Protein backbone atom coordinates (compact mmCIF):
# COMPACT_ATOMS: atom_id res chain seq x y z
CA UNK A 1 0.00 0.00 0.00
CA UNK A 2 2.73 2.42 1.06
CA UNK A 3 4.77 1.59 -1.97
CA UNK A 4 1.75 2.00 -4.22
CA UNK A 5 1.10 5.41 -2.67
CA UNK A 6 4.66 6.49 -3.32
CA UNK A 7 4.46 5.31 -6.87
CA UNK A 8 1.17 7.12 -7.39
CA UNK A 9 2.57 10.36 -6.04
CA UNK A 10 5.67 10.05 -8.16
CA UNK A 11 3.57 9.50 -11.29
CA UNK A 12 1.38 12.45 -10.36
CA UNK A 13 4.42 14.68 -9.86
CA UNK A 14 5.87 13.72 -13.26
CA UNK A 15 2.50 14.29 -14.95
CA UNK A 16 2.12 17.71 -13.36
CA UNK A 17 5.67 18.72 -14.27
CA UNK A 18 5.17 17.64 -17.89
CA UNK A 19 1.70 19.15 -18.17
CA UNK A 20 2.63 22.53 -19.71
CA UNK A 21 4.41 20.66 -22.54
CA UNK A 22 1.11 19.24 -23.70
CA UNK A 23 -1.42 21.75 -22.47
CA UNK A 24 -0.95 25.01 -24.28
CA UNK A 25 -4.19 26.61 -23.16
CA UNK A 26 -3.44 29.68 -21.10
CA UNK A 27 -6.85 29.44 -19.43
CA UNK A 28 -6.21 25.95 -18.11
CA UNK A 29 -2.73 26.84 -16.88
CA UNK A 30 -4.03 29.99 -15.21
CA UNK A 31 -6.70 28.01 -13.39
CA UNK A 32 -4.02 25.59 -12.26
CA UNK A 33 -1.77 28.37 -10.97
CA UNK A 34 -4.67 29.66 -8.88
CA UNK A 35 -5.42 26.10 -7.79
CA UNK A 36 -1.87 25.49 -6.56
CA UNK A 37 -1.82 28.78 -4.67
CA UNK A 38 -5.25 28.13 -3.14
CA UNK A 39 -3.98 24.64 -2.37
CA UNK A 40 -1.10 26.11 -0.35
CA UNK A 41 -3.59 28.23 1.56
CA UNK A 42 -5.84 25.28 2.26
CA UNK A 43 -2.96 23.03 3.34
CA UNK A 44 -1.58 25.67 5.70
CA UNK A 45 -5.04 26.36 7.11
CA UNK A 46 -5.50 22.65 7.70
CA UNK A 47 -2.35 22.56 9.80
CA UNK A 48 -4.15 24.79 12.29
CA UNK A 49 -7.67 23.46 11.76
CA UNK A 50 -7.51 19.81 10.75
CA UNK A 51 -4.45 18.81 12.74
CA UNK A 52 -4.45 21.06 15.78
CA UNK A 53 -8.24 21.54 15.89
CA UNK A 54 -8.32 25.34 15.98
CA UNK A 55 -10.82 26.93 13.60
CA UNK A 56 -8.89 30.06 12.67
CA UNK A 57 -10.50 32.88 10.72
CA UNK A 58 -7.23 34.80 10.57
CA UNK A 59 -6.05 33.11 7.40
CA UNK A 60 -7.34 35.75 4.99
CA UNK A 61 -5.59 38.40 7.07
CA UNK A 62 -2.27 36.56 7.00
CA UNK A 63 -2.68 36.07 3.25
CA UNK A 64 -3.68 39.67 2.48
CA UNK A 65 -1.35 41.49 4.85
CA UNK A 66 1.61 39.68 3.33
CA UNK A 67 0.86 41.06 -0.15
CA UNK A 68 0.84 44.59 1.16
CA UNK A 69 3.85 44.03 3.39
CA UNK A 70 5.87 42.64 0.47
CA UNK A 71 4.97 45.62 -1.68
CA UNK A 72 5.73 48.13 1.07
CA UNK A 73 9.09 46.64 1.96
CA UNK A 74 10.09 46.56 -1.72
CA UNK A 75 9.04 50.16 -2.11
CA UNK A 76 10.43 51.63 1.08
CA UNK A 77 13.36 49.39 1.94
CA UNK A 78 14.46 48.90 -1.65
CA UNK A 79 14.71 45.14 -1.27
CA UNK A 80 13.95 42.59 -3.99
CA UNK A 81 10.81 40.49 -4.24
CA UNK A 82 12.12 37.45 -2.35
CA UNK A 83 13.56 39.44 0.55
CA UNK A 84 10.29 41.37 0.62
CA UNK A 85 8.38 38.10 0.85
CA UNK A 86 10.53 36.86 3.70
CA UNK A 87 10.10 40.16 5.55
CA UNK A 88 6.35 40.01 4.98
CA UNK A 89 6.15 36.44 6.25
CA UNK A 90 8.16 37.42 9.33
CA UNK A 91 5.89 40.39 9.93
CA UNK A 92 2.83 38.14 9.66
CA UNK A 93 4.50 35.70 12.06
CA UNK A 94 4.92 38.45 14.63
CA UNK A 95 1.25 39.42 14.24
CA UNK A 96 0.30 35.75 14.60
CA UNK A 97 2.30 35.46 17.81
CA UNK A 98 0.41 38.44 19.21
CA UNK A 99 -3.04 37.25 18.11
CA UNK A 100 -2.29 33.64 19.05
CA UNK A 101 -0.92 34.55 22.46
CA UNK A 102 -4.04 36.54 23.27
CA UNK A 103 -6.38 33.75 22.11
CA UNK A 104 -4.53 30.81 23.61
CA UNK A 105 -3.63 32.48 26.92
CA UNK A 106 -7.32 33.13 27.44
CA UNK A 107 -7.96 29.53 26.40
CA UNK A 108 -10.39 30.49 23.66
CA UNK A 109 -11.69 27.41 21.91
CA UNK A 110 -13.77 26.41 18.92
CA UNK A 111 -16.44 28.99 18.26
CA UNK A 112 -14.89 31.62 20.56
CA UNK A 113 -11.52 31.23 18.94
CA UNK A 114 -13.12 31.53 15.50
CA UNK A 115 -14.95 34.73 16.45
CA UNK A 116 -11.95 36.42 18.05
CA UNK A 117 -9.61 35.57 15.17
CA UNK A 118 -12.31 36.82 12.81
CA UNK A 119 -12.42 40.09 14.73
CA UNK A 120 -8.65 40.47 14.40
CA UNK A 121 -8.90 39.66 10.71
CA UNK A 122 -11.59 42.32 10.20
CA UNK A 123 -9.48 44.79 12.14
CA UNK A 124 -6.67 44.17 9.67
CA UNK A 125 -9.02 44.49 6.69
CA UNK A 126 -10.47 47.79 7.90
CA UNK A 127 -7.01 49.14 8.56
CA UNK A 128 -5.95 48.27 5.02
CA UNK A 129 -9.19 49.71 3.67
CA UNK A 130 -8.91 53.04 5.46
CA UNK A 131 -5.18 53.71 5.55
CA UNK A 132 -5.31 55.45 2.19
CA UNK A 133 -1.86 57.01 2.27
CA UNK A 134 -0.21 53.61 2.56
CA UNK A 135 -2.58 51.12 0.97
CA UNK A 136 -4.46 53.30 -1.50
CA UNK A 137 -7.73 52.15 0.10
CA UNK A 138 -10.44 50.55 -2.02
CA UNK A 139 -8.62 51.27 -5.25
CA UNK A 140 -5.83 48.95 -4.29
CA UNK A 141 -2.34 48.84 -5.71
CA UNK A 142 -1.02 47.83 -9.11
CA UNK A 143 2.03 45.64 -8.87
CA UNK A 144 4.30 46.03 -11.87
CA UNK A 145 7.29 44.05 -10.59
CA UNK A 146 7.65 40.35 -11.16
CA UNK A 147 9.88 38.06 -9.14
CA UNK A 148 13.21 36.93 -10.55
CA UNK A 149 14.39 33.39 -10.06
CA UNK A 150 17.79 32.03 -11.09
CA UNK A 151 18.17 34.92 -13.53
CA UNK A 152 14.75 34.38 -15.08
CA UNK A 153 11.88 36.77 -14.76
CA UNK A 154 8.76 34.92 -13.64
CA UNK A 155 6.45 36.55 -16.10
CA UNK A 156 4.45 34.20 -18.29
CA UNK A 157 1.87 31.67 -17.14
CA UNK A 158 4.17 28.67 -17.65
CA UNK A 159 6.85 30.01 -15.32
CA UNK A 160 4.19 30.88 -12.75
CA UNK A 161 2.84 27.37 -13.16
CA UNK A 162 6.19 25.91 -12.18
CA UNK A 163 6.83 28.39 -9.40
CA UNK A 164 3.44 27.77 -7.80
CA UNK A 165 3.71 24.00 -8.25
CA UNK A 166 7.10 23.91 -6.56
CA UNK A 167 5.84 26.18 -3.78
CA UNK A 168 2.91 23.84 -3.20
CA UNK A 169 5.20 20.80 -3.23
CA UNK A 170 7.50 22.41 -0.66
CA UNK A 171 4.46 23.28 1.48
CA UNK A 172 3.23 19.69 1.33
CA UNK A 173 6.66 18.34 2.17
CA UNK A 174 7.20 20.68 5.12
CA UNK A 175 3.70 20.08 6.50
CA UNK A 176 3.93 16.34 6.15
CA UNK A 177 7.32 16.33 7.89
CA UNK A 178 5.82 18.47 10.62
CA UNK A 179 2.71 16.39 11.29
CA UNK A 180 4.71 13.17 11.41
CA UNK A 181 7.13 14.57 13.97
CA UNK A 182 6.71 14.73 17.75
CA UNK A 183 5.40 18.21 17.30
CA UNK A 184 2.71 16.94 14.90
CA UNK A 185 1.81 14.17 17.31
CA UNK A 186 1.28 16.84 19.97
CA UNK A 187 -0.85 18.88 17.54
CA UNK A 188 -3.15 15.88 17.13
CA UNK A 189 -3.16 15.16 20.84
CA UNK A 190 -4.31 18.72 21.47
CA UNK A 191 -7.05 18.39 18.89
CA UNK A 192 -8.30 15.15 20.40
CA UNK A 193 -8.14 16.14 24.06
CA UNK A 194 -6.22 19.20 25.14
CA UNK A 195 -6.98 18.73 28.84
CA UNK A 196 -5.42 15.31 28.73
CA UNK A 197 -2.47 16.94 26.99
CA UNK A 198 -2.11 19.29 29.94
CA UNK A 199 -2.20 16.36 32.31
CA UNK A 200 0.62 14.62 30.47
CA UNK A 201 2.78 17.71 30.72
CA UNK A 202 2.42 18.80 27.07
CA UNK A 203 2.77 22.55 26.76
CA UNK A 204 -0.58 23.01 25.03
CA UNK A 205 -0.19 26.77 24.69
CA UNK A 206 3.17 26.51 22.99
CA UNK A 207 2.03 23.90 20.47
CA UNK A 208 -1.16 25.73 19.59
CA UNK A 209 0.90 28.85 19.00
CA UNK A 210 3.46 26.94 16.94
CA UNK A 211 0.75 25.54 14.65
CA UNK A 212 -0.91 28.94 14.34
CA UNK A 213 2.33 30.73 13.44
CA UNK A 214 3.48 28.02 11.04
CA UNK A 215 0.14 28.01 9.21
CA UNK A 216 0.04 31.79 8.95
CA UNK A 217 3.66 31.91 7.78
CA UNK A 218 2.80 29.70 4.82
CA UNK A 219 -0.37 31.71 4.16
CA UNK A 220 1.79 34.83 4.07
CA UNK A 221 4.18 33.39 1.50
CA UNK A 222 1.14 32.34 -0.54
CA UNK A 223 -0.34 35.81 -0.28
CA UNK A 224 2.81 37.38 -1.60
CA UNK A 225 2.98 34.99 -4.56
CA UNK A 226 -0.72 35.44 -5.27
CA UNK A 227 -0.60 39.24 -5.30
CA UNK A 228 2.39 39.37 -7.63
CA UNK A 229 0.93 36.77 -9.96
CA UNK A 230 -2.33 38.70 -10.14
CA UNK A 231 -0.41 41.99 -10.40
CA UNK A 232 -2.69 43.81 -8.00
CA UNK A 233 -3.66 44.16 -4.36
CA UNK A 234 -6.95 45.19 -2.83
CA UNK A 235 -8.57 45.01 0.62
CA UNK A 236 -10.82 42.18 -0.61
CA UNK A 237 -7.82 39.87 -0.15
CA UNK A 238 -8.46 40.11 3.58
CA UNK A 239 -12.22 39.54 3.46
CA UNK A 240 -14.17 36.93 5.40
CA UNK A 241 -15.12 35.34 2.08
CA UNK A 242 -11.48 34.37 1.62
CA UNK A 243 -11.36 32.61 4.97
CA UNK A 244 -14.69 30.91 4.38
CA UNK A 245 -13.55 29.82 0.93
CA UNK A 246 -10.56 28.13 2.52
CA UNK A 247 -12.80 26.37 5.05
CA UNK A 248 -14.92 25.10 2.14
CA UNK A 249 -11.85 23.76 0.32
CA UNK A 250 -10.68 21.88 3.38
CA UNK A 251 -14.11 20.42 4.14
CA UNK A 252 -14.55 19.43 0.51
CA UNK A 253 -11.11 17.87 0.12
CA UNK A 254 -10.83 16.42 3.61
CA UNK A 255 -8.99 17.46 6.70
CA UNK A 256 -7.44 14.28 7.97
CA UNK A 257 -4.43 14.28 5.68
CA UNK A 258 -1.86 16.81 4.58
CA UNK A 259 -2.62 16.39 0.91
CA UNK A 260 -6.45 16.24 0.98
CA UNK A 261 -7.16 20.01 1.05
CA UNK A 262 -5.44 20.36 -2.33
CA UNK A 263 -8.22 18.29 -3.88
CA UNK A 264 -10.78 20.72 -2.51
CA UNK A 265 -8.73 23.72 -3.64
CA UNK A 266 -8.43 22.46 -7.20
CA UNK A 267 -12.14 21.62 -7.43
CA UNK A 268 -13.37 24.88 -5.98
CA UNK A 269 -11.01 26.93 -8.12
CA UNK A 270 -11.81 25.08 -11.32
CA UNK A 271 -15.51 24.50 -10.72
CA UNK A 272 -16.76 28.05 -11.45
CA UNK A 273 -15.04 27.84 -14.85
CA UNK A 274 -16.55 24.47 -15.64
CA UNK A 275 -20.12 25.38 -14.83
CA UNK A 276 -21.47 27.45 -17.65
CA UNK A 277 -24.58 28.98 -16.20
CA UNK A 278 -25.68 32.52 -15.71
CA UNK A 279 -24.17 34.13 -12.61
CA UNK A 280 -27.24 33.69 -10.37
CA UNK A 281 -27.73 30.04 -11.19
CA UNK A 282 -24.01 29.38 -10.94
CA UNK A 283 -23.90 30.38 -7.27
CA UNK A 284 -26.78 28.04 -6.51
CA UNK A 285 -25.23 25.12 -8.37
CA UNK A 286 -21.86 25.78 -6.77
CA UNK A 287 -23.36 26.01 -3.30
CA UNK A 288 -25.44 22.87 -3.79
CA UNK A 289 -22.41 20.85 -4.88
CA UNK A 290 -20.60 22.00 -1.76
CA UNK A 291 -23.46 21.19 0.59
CA UNK A 292 -24.12 17.81 -0.99
CA UNK A 293 -20.49 16.76 -0.85
CA UNK A 294 -20.22 17.69 2.79
CA UNK A 295 -23.42 15.82 3.61
CA UNK A 296 -22.57 12.70 1.65
CA UNK A 297 -18.83 12.65 2.37
CA UNK A 298 -18.15 14.13 5.78
CA UNK A 299 -14.53 13.05 5.52
CA UNK A 300 -14.15 15.00 2.29
CA UNK A 301 -13.55 13.66 -1.18
CA UNK A 302 -9.98 12.56 -0.55
CA UNK A 303 -10.84 11.07 2.84
CA UNK A 304 -13.78 9.09 1.45
CA UNK A 305 -11.82 7.72 -1.49
CA UNK A 306 -8.93 6.77 0.79
CA UNK A 307 -11.34 4.99 3.15
CA UNK A 308 -12.92 3.16 0.24
CA UNK A 309 -9.53 2.01 -1.06
CA UNK A 310 -8.52 0.85 2.41
CA UNK A 311 -11.72 -1.18 2.70
CA UNK A 312 -11.20 -2.78 -0.69
CA UNK A 313 -7.61 -3.51 0.16
CA UNK A 314 -8.61 -5.13 3.44
CA UNK A 315 -11.27 -7.39 1.95
Amino acid at each position, binding site marked *: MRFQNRFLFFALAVALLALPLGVKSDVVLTILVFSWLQGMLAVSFNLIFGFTGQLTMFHAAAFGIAGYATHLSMQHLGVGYWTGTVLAALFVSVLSIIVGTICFRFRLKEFYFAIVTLAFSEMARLTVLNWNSVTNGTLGINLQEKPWLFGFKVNDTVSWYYLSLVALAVTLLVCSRLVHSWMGRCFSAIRL*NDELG*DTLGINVFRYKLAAFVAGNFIAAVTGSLYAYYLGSLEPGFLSIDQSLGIVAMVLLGGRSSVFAPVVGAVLLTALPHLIHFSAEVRSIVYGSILILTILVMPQGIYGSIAALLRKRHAS
Partner: protein
Amino acid sequence: MIEFDGVDVHYAKNHVLKAVSLSVGAGEIVALIGANAAGKTTTLRTALGLKAPTAGALRLEGTDITKLPTVERVRRGLVLVPEGRQVFVKFTVAENLMMGGYLRKDRDRMQADLDRVYALFPRLAERRAQKAGSMSGGEQQMLAIARGLMGKPRCLVLDEPSLGLAPILVEEIANTVRRLATEGMSILLAEQNAAMALGCAARAYVLESGKIVLQGNARELESSETVRKLYLGH
Protein backbone atom coordinates in the same frame (compact mmCIF):
# COMPACT_ATOMS: atom_id res chain seq x y z
CA MET B 1 7.21 11.22 48.44
CA ILE B 2 4.37 13.68 47.97
CA GLU B 3 3.02 15.80 50.76
CA PHE B 4 0.11 18.24 51.12
CA ASP B 5 0.49 20.75 53.90
CA GLY B 6 -2.69 22.63 54.82
CA VAL B 7 -3.81 23.07 51.22
CA ASP B 8 -6.80 25.27 50.44
CA VAL B 9 -8.38 25.40 46.97
CA HIS B 10 -11.12 27.65 45.69
CA TYR B 11 -13.13 27.48 42.49
CA ALA B 12 -14.22 31.10 42.20
CA LYS B 13 -15.89 31.61 45.61
CA ASN B 14 -16.42 27.95 46.37
CA HIS B 15 -14.10 26.66 49.02
CA VAL B 16 -13.42 23.20 47.61
CA LEU B 17 -10.48 21.96 49.66
CA LYS B 18 -10.12 23.00 53.27
CA ALA B 19 -6.71 22.69 54.90
CA VAL B 20 -5.97 19.30 53.36
CA SER B 21 -2.84 17.68 54.70
CA LEU B 22 -1.77 14.26 53.53
CA SER B 23 1.33 12.38 52.57
CA VAL B 24 2.40 9.35 50.59
CA GLY B 25 5.64 7.64 51.49
CA ALA B 26 8.08 5.95 49.12
CA GLY B 27 6.66 2.68 47.79
CA GLU B 28 3.47 3.21 49.73
CA ILE B 29 -0.10 2.91 48.46
CA VAL B 30 -2.32 5.55 49.98
CA ALA B 31 -6.06 5.67 49.31
CA LEU B 32 -8.15 8.79 49.21
CA ILE B 33 -11.77 7.85 49.60
CA GLY B 34 -14.87 9.93 49.56
CA ALA B 35 -18.21 10.39 47.89
CA ASN B 36 -18.87 12.24 44.66
CA ALA B 37 -17.90 15.90 44.87
CA ALA B 38 -15.96 15.40 48.10
CA GLY B 39 -12.91 16.96 46.44
CA LYS B 40 -10.90 13.91 45.38
CA THR B 41 -10.33 15.00 41.80
CA THR B 42 -9.50 18.54 42.91
CA THR B 43 -6.93 17.15 45.33
CA LEU B 44 -5.24 15.23 42.55
CA ARG B 45 -5.40 18.11 40.09
CA THR B 46 -3.81 20.31 42.71
CA ALA B 47 -1.05 17.75 43.20
CA LEU B 48 -0.25 17.98 39.49
CA GLY B 49 -0.45 21.77 39.33
CA LEU B 50 -3.52 21.74 37.08
CA LYS B 51 -5.26 23.74 39.79
CA ALA B 52 -3.46 26.29 41.95
CA PRO B 53 -3.98 26.22 45.72
CA THR B 54 -5.02 29.42 47.50
CA ALA B 55 -3.09 28.49 50.64
CA GLY B 56 -0.76 25.80 51.89
CA ALA B 57 2.22 24.04 50.38
CA LEU B 58 2.98 20.98 48.28
CA ARG B 59 6.19 19.03 48.49
CA LEU B 60 7.62 16.33 46.27
CA GLU B 61 10.46 14.39 47.87
CA GLY B 62 10.98 17.25 50.28
CA THR B 63 11.22 20.02 47.68
CA ASP B 64 8.53 22.67 47.54
CA ILE B 65 6.63 22.32 44.25
CA THR B 66 3.71 24.63 45.05
CA LYS B 67 4.67 27.08 42.33
CA LEU B 68 6.02 24.58 39.82
CA PRO B 69 4.14 24.17 36.51
CA THR B 70 2.69 20.77 35.60
CA VAL B 71 5.44 20.09 33.06
CA GLU B 72 8.10 20.30 35.78
CA ARG B 73 6.16 18.07 38.15
CA VAL B 74 5.72 15.42 35.46
CA ARG B 75 9.45 15.66 34.73
CA ARG B 76 10.14 14.97 38.40
CA GLY B 77 8.17 11.78 38.24
CA LEU B 78 4.69 12.80 39.36
CA VAL B 79 2.22 11.33 36.89
CA LEU B 80 -1.57 11.52 36.89
CA VAL B 81 -3.91 8.99 35.34
CA PRO B 82 -7.03 11.13 35.06
CA GLU B 83 -10.58 10.07 35.72
CA GLY B 84 -12.85 8.54 33.10
CA ARG B 85 -10.42 6.45 30.99
CA GLN B 86 -8.98 9.42 29.24
CA VAL B 87 -7.17 8.24 26.15
CA PHE B 88 -6.61 9.77 22.75
CA VAL B 89 -9.39 7.86 21.00
CA LYS B 90 -8.10 8.29 17.46
CA PHE B 91 -4.54 7.33 18.32
CA THR B 92 -3.47 3.71 18.29
CA VAL B 93 -2.55 2.00 21.54
CA ALA B 94 1.14 2.42 20.74
CA GLU B 95 0.76 6.12 19.93
CA ASN B 96 -1.13 6.68 23.17
CA LEU B 97 1.66 5.00 25.10
CA MET B 98 4.27 7.14 23.40
CA MET B 99 2.44 10.31 24.42
CA GLY B 100 2.93 9.17 28.01
CA GLY B 101 6.68 9.37 27.52
CA TYR B 102 6.53 12.73 25.82
CA LEU B 103 8.55 14.62 28.44
CA ARG B 104 11.35 12.13 28.63
CA LYS B 105 14.73 13.10 27.30
CA ASP B 106 15.17 9.68 25.76
CA ARG B 107 11.79 9.73 24.07
CA ASP B 108 13.15 8.49 20.79
CA ARG B 109 14.32 5.31 22.47
CA MET B 110 11.21 4.11 24.18
CA GLN B 111 11.04 0.60 22.77
CA ALA B 112 12.37 -1.04 25.93
CA ASP B 113 9.71 0.65 28.04
CA LEU B 114 7.01 -0.18 25.53
CA ASP B 115 8.02 -3.83 25.82
CA ARG B 116 7.98 -3.63 29.61
CA VAL B 117 4.50 -2.10 29.62
CA TYR B 118 3.26 -4.66 27.10
CA ALA B 119 4.57 -7.41 29.35
CA LEU B 120 2.57 -5.93 32.21
CA PHE B 121 -0.58 -5.58 30.10
CA PRO B 122 -0.54 -8.39 27.51
CA ARG B 123 -3.92 -7.35 26.18
CA LEU B 124 -2.51 -4.00 25.12
CA ALA B 125 0.29 -5.77 23.28
CA GLU B 126 -2.26 -7.67 21.20
CA ARG B 127 -3.97 -4.42 20.34
CA ARG B 128 -1.01 -2.14 19.86
CA ALA B 129 -2.03 -1.11 16.33
CA GLN B 130 -5.70 -0.71 17.18
CA LYS B 131 -7.36 2.67 17.74
CA ALA B 132 -7.82 3.31 21.45
CA GLY B 133 -11.41 4.42 20.90
CA SER B 134 -12.39 0.99 19.63
CA MET B 135 -11.40 -0.81 22.82
CA SER B 136 -13.58 -1.70 25.79
CA GLY B 137 -13.78 0.48 28.88
CA GLY B 138 -11.55 -1.83 30.90
CA GLU B 139 -8.91 -1.91 28.18
CA GLN B 140 -8.98 1.87 27.89
CA GLN B 141 -8.43 2.17 31.63
CA MET B 142 -5.49 -0.25 31.38
CA LEU B 143 -4.15 1.87 28.54
CA ALA B 144 -4.47 5.03 30.61
CA ILE B 145 -2.49 3.44 33.44
CA ALA B 146 0.07 1.99 31.04
CA ARG B 147 0.49 5.41 29.45
CA GLY B 148 1.16 6.82 32.90
CA LEU B 149 3.91 4.22 33.38
CA MET B 150 5.62 5.31 30.17
CA GLY B 151 6.50 8.55 31.93
CA LYS B 152 8.63 6.54 34.38
CA PRO B 153 6.75 7.85 37.42
CA ARG B 154 8.13 7.74 40.94
CA CYS B 155 4.72 8.68 42.22
CA LEU B 156 1.63 7.59 40.32
CA VAL B 157 -1.63 9.39 41.01
CA LEU B 158 -4.76 7.47 39.99
CA ASP B 159 -8.18 9.08 39.78
CA GLU B 160 -11.05 6.58 40.09
CA PRO B 161 -9.50 3.81 38.01
CA SER B 162 -12.36 1.43 38.89
CA LEU B 163 -15.13 3.75 37.74
CA GLY B 164 -17.74 1.89 35.70
CA LEU B 165 -15.74 -1.32 35.38
CA ALA B 166 -16.88 -4.90 35.95
CA PRO B 167 -15.75 -6.41 39.28
CA ILE B 168 -13.27 -8.73 37.62
CA LEU B 169 -11.56 -5.78 35.93
CA VAL B 170 -11.56 -3.82 39.19
CA GLU B 171 -9.71 -6.76 40.75
CA GLU B 172 -7.23 -6.74 37.86
CA ILE B 173 -6.53 -3.07 38.34
CA ALA B 174 -6.10 -3.55 42.08
CA ASN B 175 -3.55 -6.29 41.39
CA THR B 176 -1.67 -4.06 38.99
CA VAL B 177 -1.55 -1.26 41.56
CA ARG B 178 -0.17 -3.63 44.21
CA ARG B 179 2.45 -4.95 41.83
CA LEU B 180 3.63 -1.44 40.95
CA ALA B 181 4.00 -0.59 44.64
CA THR B 182 6.14 -3.67 45.26
CA GLU B 183 8.43 -2.37 42.53
CA GLY B 184 8.94 0.74 44.64
CA MET B 185 6.45 3.15 43.13
CA SER B 186 4.45 5.44 45.40
CA ILE B 187 0.76 5.48 44.62
CA LEU B 188 -1.99 7.89 45.55
CA LEU B 189 -5.29 6.24 44.73
CA ALA B 190 -8.51 8.26 44.78
CA GLU B 191 -11.56 6.04 44.80
CA GLN B 192 -15.25 6.05 45.37
CA ASN B 193 -14.99 2.30 45.52
CA ALA B 194 -13.73 2.20 49.11
CA ALA B 195 -13.58 -1.57 49.27
CA MET B 196 -11.17 -1.75 46.37
CA ALA B 197 -9.08 1.19 47.57
CA LEU B 198 -8.78 -0.02 51.17
CA GLY B 199 -7.98 -3.48 49.87
CA CYS B 200 -4.88 -2.13 48.10
CA ALA B 201 -3.73 0.62 50.39
CA ALA B 202 -1.60 0.64 53.51
CA ARG B 203 -3.05 3.90 54.72
CA ALA B 204 -6.09 5.93 53.76
CA TYR B 205 -7.68 9.34 54.09
CA VAL B 206 -11.41 9.98 54.05
CA LEU B 207 -12.43 13.20 52.35
CA GLU B 208 -15.80 14.80 53.02
CA SER B 209 -16.86 18.17 51.58
CA GLY B 210 -13.26 19.15 51.05
CA LYS B 211 -12.03 18.20 54.51
CA ILE B 212 -10.13 15.19 55.70
CA VAL B 213 -12.40 13.74 58.34
CA LEU B 214 -10.67 10.43 58.99
CA GLN B 215 -7.27 8.98 58.39
CA GLY B 216 -5.16 6.05 59.37
CA ASN B 217 -4.26 2.47 58.72
CA ALA B 218 -6.38 0.99 55.95
CA ARG B 219 -7.20 -2.16 57.91
CA GLU B 220 -8.42 -0.12 60.86
CA LEU B 221 -10.49 2.18 58.66
CA GLU B 222 -12.02 -0.82 56.96
CA SER B 223 -13.47 -1.93 60.26
CA SER B 224 -14.39 1.53 61.56
CA GLU B 225 -18.08 2.18 62.05
CA THR B 226 -18.35 5.33 59.87
CA VAL B 227 -16.43 3.96 56.92
CA ARG B 228 -18.38 0.71 56.97
CA LYS B 229 -21.69 2.51 57.09
CA LEU B 230 -20.99 5.32 54.64
CA TYR B 231 -18.54 3.87 52.17
CA LEU B 232 -18.62 0.11 52.32
CA GLY B 233 -22.36 -0.27 52.68
CA HIS B 234 -22.43 -3.01 55.33
